């Protein structure tokens, strides 16, 4: 049995609220399934007694999970670590990315190959690159740094014990530098040659050229790079899991690793749900400020 739907023209759809709503249903339901349902489930769990080690203790816990989490000394540190990781990596990737982009905009022998080499870290999986850094570069016995330090008579350092967060910042920056480099390079290349020549005629040297012509031109690319990197870097996990496992103590635990600790080390789903809500809150706060400071740049 087939039912014939009347074919609606664009005007008719626009004037008929019901028809319009109907056409929006697929998009809205997908959005609902993907984000609202998990959010509601998280909210639900956050008020439940739900620990896999104690399957018999169920029921509502009121604000119990919240009280437990907020009294956790790890939470404040995890929030701080999340923000510190994000800010440092953004600073390093965009700073170095801009320098590299300007460098690679110049014509030099072997530029094509050099560009591919710069981009290659981005193609390495996070777990693999973390292992590479952990075992081949930063390792206190077998690492390249240890070898170099020994060869000049210094005592090798166990980087993940002494400076776990800094080590992770280095690893993730190495991974994300290519991304920043690529977006900034395309922005640098889109700068009108005549505009640079006009600045040269106006007497701009290299520094003035960067400050007054190139950097303002990069504003939009920097904004976009910051946003995209923020989305991914808020949830750094693999690099921490593989290298320092969040330690020593909570020294390199960020929010996503804290949630992991709750779920798979303490089997506390309720507590993890509250930590997850804190992460959502933090992400939204950051998104709000980012949008406010960059929105002008993006629609320029």
């Amino acid at each position, binding site marked *: 049995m087939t039912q014939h739907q009347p074919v609606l023209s664009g005007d008719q759809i626009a004037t008929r609220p019901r028809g319009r709503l109907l056409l929006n249903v697929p998009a809205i339901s997908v959005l609902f399934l993907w984000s609202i349902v998990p959010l509601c489930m998280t909210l639900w769990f956050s008020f439940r007694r739900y620990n896999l080690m104690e399957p018999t203790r169920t029921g509502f816990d009121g604000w119990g999970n919240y009280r437990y989490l907020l009294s956790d000394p790890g939470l404040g540190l995890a929030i701080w670590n999340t923000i510190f990781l994000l800010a440092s990596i953004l600073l390093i990737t965009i700073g170095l990315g801009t320098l590299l982009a300007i460098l690679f905009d110049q014509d030099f022998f072997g530029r094509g190959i050099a560009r591919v080499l710069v981009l290659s870290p981005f193609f390495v999986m996070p777990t693999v690159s973390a292992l590479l850094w952990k075992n081949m570069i930063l390792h206190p016995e077998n690492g390249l740094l240890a070898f170099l330090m020994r060869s000049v008579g210094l005592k090798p350092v166990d980087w993940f014990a002494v400076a776990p967060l800094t080590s992770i910042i280095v690893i993730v920056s190495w991974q994300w530098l290519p991304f920043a480099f690529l977006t900034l390079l395309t922005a640098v290349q889109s700068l*009108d040659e*005549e*505009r640079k*020549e*006009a*600045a*040269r*005629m*106006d*007497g*701009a040297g290299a520094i*003035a050229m960067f400050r*007054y*012509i190139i950097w*303002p*031109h990069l*504003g939009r690319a920097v904004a976009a790079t910051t946003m995209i990197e923020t989305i991914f870097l808020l949830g750094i996990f693999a690099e921490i899991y593989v290298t320092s496992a969040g330690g020593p103590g909570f020294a390199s635990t960020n929010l996503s690793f804290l949630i992991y600790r709750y779920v798979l080390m303490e089997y506390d789903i309720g507590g993890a749900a509250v930590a997850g809500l804190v992460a959502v809150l933090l992400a939204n706060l950051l998104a709000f400020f980012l949008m406010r400071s960059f929105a002008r740049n993006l629609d320029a």
Partner: protein
Amino acid sequence: MATIELRQIRKSFGESEILRGIDLTIRDQELTVFVGPSGCGKSTLLRLIAGLEDSTAGDLLLDGQRINHVNPARRGLALVFQTYALYPHMSVADNMSFNLKLAGVPKEERERKVAEAARILNLEALLQRKPKELSGGQRQRVAIGRAIVRNPKVFLFDEPLSNLDASLRVRMRVELTRLHRQLRATTIYVTHDQVEAMTMADRIVVLQAGSVEQIGTPMELYRQPKNIFVAGFIGSPRMNFLSATLQQNTSSGTMIAFPDGATLHVPLISKSAQAGEKVTLGLRPEHAYLAENSVLAAKVQTVEHLGPESYLHLLSRYGEAMTVRVNGETTTKVDADISVGFDPGSLHLFDKSGLAFESPSMLTTGTGVSN
């Protein structure tokens, strides 16, 4: 006071030679136009003077000083770019004073100079706007303002009107000429448009394939093109060219023969052309008219009515395309057989290498037509 002198300037990009030894003097206070077809090297020549390119060989002198290796910003020249090249994130005022700011000029003086330039260019109301909020003509004026603020010895314009629509272009042309009269600064203006060259220039430099073809005032080039290239390039519509054979050199002129044997006496002479040589007869469309009987019979192919005048596109009986300017009210129809008349004094003649024949009186007195 600023005079630019070029001595044997050469420029090559890799294997290809763009400029092949340019000797040129840009006179003080004059508006000199570099004109030529695209790829003739006129823009390269301008960029070389501006300092954005280095010459491969030769000397570039500004008021007698060699400036080949002087930094572009220190040459005291200002360049107005084809795309205007304004700084999009700066206001009009900041665009105009960027040079002064980099030079460390105090704020009050900067503002004073910007205000003065804005007054000359009628930009006062727009000083706080960003370039994207301006129309094409306004951007053009800001670009010129940026040049004026620098108070340069020489203004350089690189096809400044080619991004504007036709009516605005005519208006800016008049405005630029007025501005030049007002500022009395030495100016070099590059264009591919011979109309701009004719209307604006004090002196035109015609370039082709990296060489100077001819230098002169607009009317000198129009009346006495040195060769067939200049003759074809200056004037619109283009000069008609008809091939013929040199029959005899006389003291008062030259006898030429058309393919069918018809002969014509042209009051121009050449010292080098020999009898029997292939020559080209040149006749401007505006110097031709419809006649009863003439050696130039033709068939009308198309009639273009422009209002004040009409152009007849013809095919001569020797199979060559011709254009004749006639009255705007002409009733001549397509396919009509007509005869083209002309005053022998308005004819041009070129030898087989394209070099123009000269008027016998010119050879004796040695002076050209002056204006």
